[in-house]
């Protein structure tokens, strides 16, 4: 399973751009807000009054915001929390418990990927419940307080608008957090309980494995032809599956892993009794293993592709790409078999101390066949390591090639010895073996991993995350908690948006607009793609007029430019120029618009959980936490101005 958003930008690389975007958003909102404020006052009281009013609000805002009192804010948060509790919001937890208690009845128990199924159900149910809960709590609270006039006794005390906003965000955030903590433990127990099972040995299936040839160890024959050297068999069918195993004996004992089925395997141990008669009792089977993994991958910092001519291959935006094989999903880029083409991963700072004898690689490659060939045999590829030189074309020291057969549709493990045969810069074998993590690392701490396909007429698809070095796994429970933090961030954002809209809209309309924000946020990436055509440099795409023109004229070049080039009529020239400007501003507005909403799709970490990948705190969670904080800050500040300039009474 491929998780596309695994490759987050490193935190320190993300931070400056994010801060810049934050400052830009604040500035634009300040200017826009001042303009709207000016126009609304100027309309009724004239421009002089409007300037005074806007300046008055803006200048007083700074000390007002600075004077925010934690005691008052927490008092208001406590009231919001009590209000929600007295409204019996924890009934939602009970509903969730019911779903979890009886949910397993309705789950497809014969599913091949039960972990994916269980996690999807748990996260799906939690997401809907927490969205509804936070939505209903946040959008109706302030309008109800205004309607019931309870707000009168609040705003006639020395309470600042920001305290009212933050109090609500904190109060409802606390309720949501409590809900999520309870639900998280219930979910974890549900997943663990639902997926654990026990197998017994199917006695009828036990067969002896006999030696086909004499087995010699240290010059001594330890087994003659026909001697029993192990046992093979099956487990009983439990939880709608059974496993096969083969155990080879050594001094009357042996243990082995079963085959991998339904996202797990078991370890079967056998101790042959003194009388030599193996029964079901001679075997012990472990609980399911490998089901709940949290792999910690170290990804390459870069991927480059070498073209057929042996030169770095790039597209028109400067991004290094391989061959486009026509697949709509453009995650993978392909290299041709039996050619110079290669995919090159550059790993940085792989510490030699972290890996003893082997470098544990995991591969997640895609295959594209031009000829059917032997479908049961995978496509052959080879990897080797190279010391980075000034460019991909310049020769450098490298290791010998490690051939392997690519396994499609699964994560393939490849333990490559750190010490491999070496080739010098002329391509001659070196005398001694070379240490990949020492001898092939350049001054910058980089080492290159090259992949080539050796089957002609076949292609291998690769992306930056397709090959990584796997370090020891982290705690699965911790990863579960991190995925819930993703949900928590979503909840906080819904609350912040709900409270924000409720400062100037009534309850039902606030609910609709918040819901719309969630939907737009979920499709933010698509909106952004429309505005930028998916270009890496985020350049604006063409606008709707140009797009319509291209559809009508069936051209893929710039239609407006072409028409403009063909005409000398000044009216038409200016008209076309105006249309181009309209196009430009529409696309610009679309891109700005997409930035106004948080990207909810980035906050769903359940994919990483089901695929068994660790959620990186610094590169994945922390940026999202800070982004959410930024959104809460901006929505709260804008809400402050709405509430400050709003007449509470009617």
């Amino acid at each position, binding site marked *: 399973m491929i998780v596309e958003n695994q490759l987050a930008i490193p935190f320190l690389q993300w931070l400056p751009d994010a801060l810049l975007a934050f400052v830009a958003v604040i500035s634009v909102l300040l200017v826009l807000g001042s303009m709207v404020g000016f126009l609304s006052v100027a309309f009724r009281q004239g421009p002089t009054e409007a300037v005074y009013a806007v300046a008055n609000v803006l200048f007083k805002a700074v000390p007002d915001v600075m004077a925010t009192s934690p005691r008052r804010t927490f008092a208001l948060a*406590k009231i919001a929390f009590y209000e929600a509790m007295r409204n019996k919001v924890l009934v939602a937890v009970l509903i969730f418990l019911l779903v979890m208690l009886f949910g397993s009845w309705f789950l497809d128990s014969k599913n091949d990927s039960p972990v994916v199924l269980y996690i999807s159900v748990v996260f799906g149910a939690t997401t809907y419940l927490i969205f509804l809960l936070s939505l209903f709590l946040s959008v109706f609270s302030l309008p109800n307080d205004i309607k019931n006039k309870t707000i009168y006794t609040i705003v006639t005390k020395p309470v600042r608008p920001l305290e009212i906003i933050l109090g609500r965000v904190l109060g409802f955030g606390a309720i949501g957090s409590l809900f999520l903590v309870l639900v998280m433990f219930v979910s974890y127990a549900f997943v663990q309980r639902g997926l654990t099972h026990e197998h017994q040995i199917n006695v009828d299936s036990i067969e002896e494995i006999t030696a086909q040839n004499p087995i010699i160890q240290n010059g001594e024959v330890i087994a003659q032809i026909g001697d029993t050297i192990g046992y093979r068999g099956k487990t009983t069918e439990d939880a709608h599956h059974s496993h096969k195993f083969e155990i080879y004996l050594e001094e009357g004992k042996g243990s082995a892993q079963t085959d991998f089925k339904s996202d797990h395997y078991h370890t079967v141990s056998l101790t042959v009794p003194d009388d030599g008669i193996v029964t079901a009792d001679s075997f012990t089977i472990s609980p399911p293993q490998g089901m709940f993994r949290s792999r910690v991958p170290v990804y390459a910092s870069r991927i480059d592709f070498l073209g057929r001519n042996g030169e770095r291959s790039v597209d028109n935006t400067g991004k290094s790409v391989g061959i486009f094989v026509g697949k709509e999903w453009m995650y993978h880029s392909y290299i041709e078999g039996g050619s110079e083409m290669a995919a090159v991963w550059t790993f940085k700072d792989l510490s030699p101390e972290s890996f003893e004898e082997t470098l544990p690689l995991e591969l997640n490659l895609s295959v594209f066949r031009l000829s059917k060939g032997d479908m049961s045999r995978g496509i052959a590829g080879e990897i080797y390591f190279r010391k980075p030189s000034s460019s991909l074309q310049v020769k450098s020291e490298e290791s010998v090639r490690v051939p392997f057969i690519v396994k499609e549709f699964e994560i393939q493990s490849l333990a490559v010895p750190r010490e491999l045969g070496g080739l010098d810069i002329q391509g001659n074998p070196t005398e001694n073996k070379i240490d990949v993590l020492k001898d092939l690392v350049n001054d910058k701490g980089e080492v290159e991993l090259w992949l080539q396909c050796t089957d002609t007429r076949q292609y291998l698809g690769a992306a930056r995350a397709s090959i990584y070095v796997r370090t020891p796994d982290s705690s699965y429970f911790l990863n579960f908690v991190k995925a819930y933090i993703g949900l928590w961030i979503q909840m906080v954002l819904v609350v912040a948006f709900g409270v924000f809209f409720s400062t100037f809209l009534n309850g039902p309309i606030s609910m609709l607009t918040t819901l719309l924000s969630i939907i737009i946020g979920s499709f933010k990436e698509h909106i952004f793609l429309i505005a930028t055509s998916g270009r890496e440099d985020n350049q604006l795409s063409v606008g709707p007029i140009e797009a319509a023109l291209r559809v009508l004229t069936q051209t893929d070049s710039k239609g407006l430019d072409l028409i403009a080039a063909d005409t000398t009529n000044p009216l038409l020239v200016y008209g076309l120029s105006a249309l181009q400007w309209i196009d430009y501003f529409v696309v610009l507005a679309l891109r700005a618009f997409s930035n106004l909403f948080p990207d909810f799709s980035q906050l769903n970490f359940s994919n990483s959980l089901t695929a068994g990948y660790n959620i990186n705190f610094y590169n994945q969670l922390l940026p999202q936490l800070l982004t959410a904080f930024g959104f809460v800050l901006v929505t709260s500040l804008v809400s402050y101005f709405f509430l400050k300039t709003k007449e*509470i009474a009617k």
Partner: protein
Amino acid sequence: MAKSETSSKTNSKVNKSQSNKEGEPEEGGGGVAVETAEASKRDFSQNEVVAETRNLSKTYHDFWGRQKVQALKSLDIEIRKGEIFGLLGPNGSGKTTTIKLLLGLLFPTRGQALLFGKDATEVKQKERIGYLPEESYLYKFLNAEETLDFYGRLFDMPRDLRKKRVEELITMVGLNWAKKRQLKEYSKGMTRRIGLAQALLNDPELIILDEPTTGLDPIGTREMKDLILRLRDEGKTVLLCSHLLADVQDVCDRIAVLYGGDLKEMGRVDDLLKVQNITQFSTTALPEEARTEIEEVLKKHGADLLTMTNPTSTLEELFLKIVKESQERPGRRGAVHK
């Protein structure tokens, strides 16, 4: 309401003045006259201005900006430290609008609403005021203690002070027995009491009371009026608006009568209620023959002249007269007696 010493004292004073009004001479009647005179001498005109409206106007507009209602027209009033100021007017006269403008719940269309010399919308000013709304706009799911503790936090009171004030005020409004009950279980009278307690939590300099006696039984009403007078005696300023004219007459030093957003009358209650064209004498018992020659007797027979004042009407009569005149002559601005 639990009566403190001050309360009882104020109570007796008010009762006496009432007896006097009813014209029931009693022992030591001369003393009553002295006290009434003292009360009428109470002069706040030199005190600092606590709340003020300057040309205060409020117009409501519809969505398109068209004028819908002019709720308040150029109101100028000054409320001075230590006085009890009453706002009177029929429904829709603008008195609630005035209070909302002074509390910063509404923004003026023109003019200014000032508290302690500064704009009423400034948060800092609200540390010095207490507000009892017309109805109890409190959180029904809290009990009395939680309610006052919550409002105490809004005043940023430290925990010890908060605890002390909560205990004091619950005792003062006589709700000790029900302090753990949720407000949704309270009767209207109890809710008014807890509402009053929250208004007094910060020991405010200006207390704004909107219909303070609504929903209270006669004893509760009496106690509320006593409390208002006691607050005045403690140097607080009280602004109240009420429909219950007898209450206003009993406690207010000055009143303003609004009608249709206009100020119709403003001045001291005793001045406004004075009937100017009638002189009223009150004497001790006179000989029969002297009655026939009363005018001469007063001069020649040396009877003790106890009082010689203008009789007063009731506030209700004055109020109805203003409303009637306003209906007959719309647009007439009222007289202001400083």
